[in-house]
């Protein structure tokens, strides 16, 4: 009775609803000084710094099912007179690498790096439970070591952009 007096509407269209959510959020940040690359008595350099943290972001049904693209955007500012290599390794529960990437930061310079995951790379990334960040201080050309009294900074800021497709 209701249908007989109503216009042509099509409820099947509801099946075709889809939309993209694009969320941008701050990610990690760090600020390292010359002292963190020197040993206790400042007699030698510590060439590698590592940090491992547990990340929960992929451990949700919503992310697993709907995430279609993940961007990681890095802004790095380096006032060291040295180059750095920064390596990001995503690890699964068994500490095996799922995805990793490295970028080089020039001495006394700035760097913007975008790392995008989609397709197979994203599938692999979604299995990650930990993030390991390793910072490699490149040796100086004249083999001199850092001076604890000369202020230098490696400043890293980052954000993520996740795109979810809902349908």
């Amino acid at each position, binding site marked *: 009775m209701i249908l007989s007096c109503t216009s042509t509407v099509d409820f099947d269209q509801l099946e075709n609803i889809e*939309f993209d*959510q*694009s969320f941008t959020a701050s*990610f990690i940040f760090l600020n390292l000084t010359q002292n963190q690359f020197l040993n206790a008595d400042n007699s030698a350099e510590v060439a590698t710094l*590592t*940090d491992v943290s547990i*990340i929960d972001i992929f451990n949700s049904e919503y992310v697993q099912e709907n995430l279609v693209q993940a961007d990681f955007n890095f802004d790095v500012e380096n006032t060291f007179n040295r180059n750095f290599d920064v390596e990001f390794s995503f690890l699964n529960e068994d500490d095996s690498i799922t995805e990793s990437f490295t970028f080089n930061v020039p001495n006394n310079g700035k760097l913007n790096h975008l790392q995008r995951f989609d397709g197979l790379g994203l599938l692999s990334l979604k299995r990650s439970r930990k993030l390991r960040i390793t910072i490699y201080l490149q040796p100086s050309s004249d083999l001199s070591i850092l001076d604890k009294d000369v202020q230098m900074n490696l400043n890293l800021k980052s*954000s993520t952009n996740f795109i979810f497709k809902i349908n």
Partner: protein
Amino acid sequence: MLLFLCFMMSQSYAQNKKFIFGNNDIPQSLMVNPGAEANYRKHIGIPLFSGIYVNVGSNNLTITDVLAKDGIDINDKLRNQLFRMKATDFVTVNEQLDIINIGYKLHNDRDYLNFGFYQEFDFVAYYPKELTILFYQGNTDENGNINLNNTTNFNELNFKGQAFGVFHAGISRKINNKLNVGIRAKLYSGIFNVQSVNNKGNFKSVLGENNVYQHELNNIDFLIQSSGLIKNDEFALSGKSIFSNMFLGGNLGLGVDAGFTYNLNDKLKISASLLDVGFISYSKDISSYKVSGNYELEGVGLIIPENDPIPYWEDLRVDFDEQVERKEVSKTYFSFPSAKFNASVHYGFGKQIRKYTSIIDCHTNNGFSQYNYQNELGVQLYSIFRPKLPQTAATVYYSRRISNFLQTKVTYTLDSYSFSNIGIGFAARIRKFSLYASVDNVLGYKDLYDSKKMSLSLGMNLIFD
């Protein structure tokens, strides 16, 4: 389900009983104006059928807007509607069922005492636009750039739904030939309630200091309250709980209606009423949830070198829990029925028709003095006080007595959304049996899916002159 959706998408001003208001032939006019004139000795409503009223709708969206079979991609239509609608747009449902309604004139011949019991369900929800858009497209623009300094306000989240039984007793007194005043006391008995009406705070992202962005939850104060719906984390609404709560089961409240009718002369009269000024105190099966606090997040600051792995993300969670308090509340709370205001001017003209009467009371000369003009023109104003804004409608009507037992009425209602709302109704009287029925927005029935409003009322009473 389709019917329900249909209802949800139609426009409405809940409880705008413009057919009944000012219509002295219908005893239920006393329910919308306790100061209405009752020109009969007594009335007995047919139990459960004396007053049935349903009004459902949305003010600014129809099903056709989104689901028309027009070849346009539904996602384009959905997007357009989500951005077009305003945060003051709403959907509403109101239903009333008179269970018992009785009245009789006291021996002083001035006072008409009337009382009874009815059940009501009332729901209104506003469109939380900013939250919906945040969910729909995220926190970036079309180019993927973050919307900085753009606030998402939580006060847009605003809804109220409740069902209750109402025991009421009113008196309509004829002060003199011109003035009739009335008052009604109400004892509310809350069946269930769920509401979230006074939320505060916002979410926004700004440029950060230590990291690219800082995300902020500012002055969050969110509260959702419910009673009679959840008990020990389980859905608790049942036939038994509805029945026991409806009849003074524990959620009690008080309210008052007041109104008057004033005859400027035998052709012109004005009337006005204020209804449901009161409260209900909900104390049974309370399940409420409160979120409050402030939070700022710049991301995870890594501390290197550190020998032991630091649970950064877990620390964030703990910090969030400390800053933003989330707790269950089981306190008794108040909810307010939506108060309504009615006012009208009626003008009678044309032939005078003596009202149908079976008894002519020689003592009061009642039977002879009861007459009506064949035609009546009127203007009515209606307002219902909703959580965000009062919803107001103005109606012009023409009413005609076709005979002394049949009266018809046509209404034309104007509001800020619709200029084509025509309603029709009739009241018939066959000896002691009185029947009335009305539908609003009749043009909308041609195409319910394209209609914003759907409203009908009907009732049967026995009237003793």
